[in-house]
């Protein structure tokens, strides 16, 4: 039984003529870690808002089709109940700082205060979540004094601490350096293994290939390809459609045409590329 089920979703923002989502059908199974890739304007953020219930409850506009999470339709639920099951962290970390709290610890506890979690449980959940995302040392800092990458980690932790069943992330590592990105992917992968269903919009193709179960390619409001990371990220359709693919994939494809790549499958990560090209210049 799919935990997340989008059925024939067509959505138009208020005062616009063109639908941003044009007939989306999407299922995500319990505990799956799914990545969504696509050019800017493809509707990725809108899709995130739709799964998280903000479309249509917050943005209004016209939506047809159904969004079901854990068997309940978003149209039949109130937003404040929906967010307990579906957590959302989006790109801009600065705008996710509530402004109501003076330390990172308090900031992360903010959500738990709102939903009425008892104090002792609150404290232990916050400590655990901070350990998971590696920001325990930032506990007493002011959220506004942090770098963009650090703020993104705080934003992610603030949602993880609410323990949603489904986690929707819109480019959560865009401002992080490679070390931070790795830590976040490892943390999220761990949560997925423990049963959280994760849907993540990402550009960083190499990391997706490493950690994700399934990739969905979105363009112009429609799903154009779906499958394993290998199937999707090395497909020529993606390169032709202007998606940001790994340079290793792209150079190997060119090399293949020149007779300088012998494998059937194309590489996505550095290791795969080294592997394949070593055979070409084999000692």
């Amino acid at each position: 039984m799919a935990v997340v089920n989008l059925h024939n979703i067509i959505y138009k923002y208020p005062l616009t003529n063109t639908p941003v989502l044009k007939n989306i059908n999407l299922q995500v199974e319990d505990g799956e870690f799914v990545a969504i890739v696509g050019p800017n304007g493809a509707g990725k953020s809108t899709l995130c808002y739709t799964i998280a219930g903000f479309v249509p409850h917050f943005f209004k506009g016209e939506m047809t089709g159904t969004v079901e999470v854990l068997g309940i339709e978003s149209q039949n639920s109130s937003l404040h109940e929906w967010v307990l099951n579906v957590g959302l962290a989006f790109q801009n970390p600065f705008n996710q700082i509530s402004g109501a709290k003076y330390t990172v610890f308090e900031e992360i506890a903010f959500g738990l205060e709102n939903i009425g979690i008892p104090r002792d449980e609150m404290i232990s959940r916050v400590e655990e979540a901070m350990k998971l995302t590696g920001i325990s040392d930032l506990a007493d800092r002011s959220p506004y004094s942090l770098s963009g990458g650090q703020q993104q980690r705080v934003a992610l932790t603030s949602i993880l601490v609410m323990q949603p069943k489904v986690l929707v992330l819109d480019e959560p590592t865009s401002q992080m350096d490679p070390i931070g990105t790795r830590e976040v992917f490892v943390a999220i992968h761990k949560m997925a293994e423990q049963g959280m269903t994760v849907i993540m919009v990402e550009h960083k193709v190499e990391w997706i290939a490493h950690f994700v179960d399934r990739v969905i390619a979105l363009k112009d409001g429609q799903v154009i390809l779906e499958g394993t990371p290998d199937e999707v990220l090395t497909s020529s359709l993606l390169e032709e459609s202007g998606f940001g693919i790994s340079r290793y994939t792209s150079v190997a494809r060119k090399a293949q045409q020149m007779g300088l790549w012998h494998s059937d499958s194309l590489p996505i990560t550095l290791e795969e590329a080294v592997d394949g090209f070593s055979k070409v210049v084999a000692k």
Partner: protein
Amino acid sequence: MRERLSFFVKRDSPIHRLNPMTKVVLALSLVLIAFSSPWFWTPPAIFILVILPLTLIGKVAREYWNFFFKVILPTILFLFIMQALFLPGKSKIIFEIFGLEATELSAQLAFRNATRIAVMVSSFTILLLTTHPSELMSDLTRRGMPGQFAYVIISSIQIIPQMQAKAQTIISAQRSRGLDTQSSFFKRAGSLIPLIGPLVFGSLVEVEERAIAIEARGFTSTNTKTSLHEIPDTNVDKTIRWILVAFVLASVAWRLWLL
């Protein structure tokens, strides 16, 4: 990183340890007594006998005097002079500035008003100096103030310095496009739009995203909110509040008795 806009000074003192509501009641009581008491010398008496000791007990004397000399004193001096010169009152003239006269009566009234204002501003200053804004808002919310209201106040305190920083960046960006901020040309209203436009539009985008972010963290949840920090409300606090209320009632009663 810019300083917070709030007054709060982090220290450990008996005043700091009082429950926020107690300090609110204290500030309001001092104001009510200063304004209702029929005795002319009440405001200065409160100032010397209550305000000053409080700044010492609360260990915020330095910050208080800093604010006093920078803001309070100039304001009340200005008020005093204006009122003394312009309030009506036929009696002996005691001084004169630029042909405007101050009589004994008007000077008395001006003095009373100025000292009352001084007490009012000072008591709230002490409240803000010794109370963390988060704690104040948390306590008031617990006692029934709407959570959204508290959020607006608290987030404004932190977000205003951020907006100031943003305004600075906008000015730099527009200057880099040749906007001349130094010529008299600049004073035309049209030159303000390149500076205010981005600030307003950018802020609208920010506000929308922030609303989504706090919604995602249960801001509109109908559950009873809990608090990370325990804000104690001791018997000492409750006693102090009742004593203050008694003083206020006595002062008002005295005033009514004399009518």
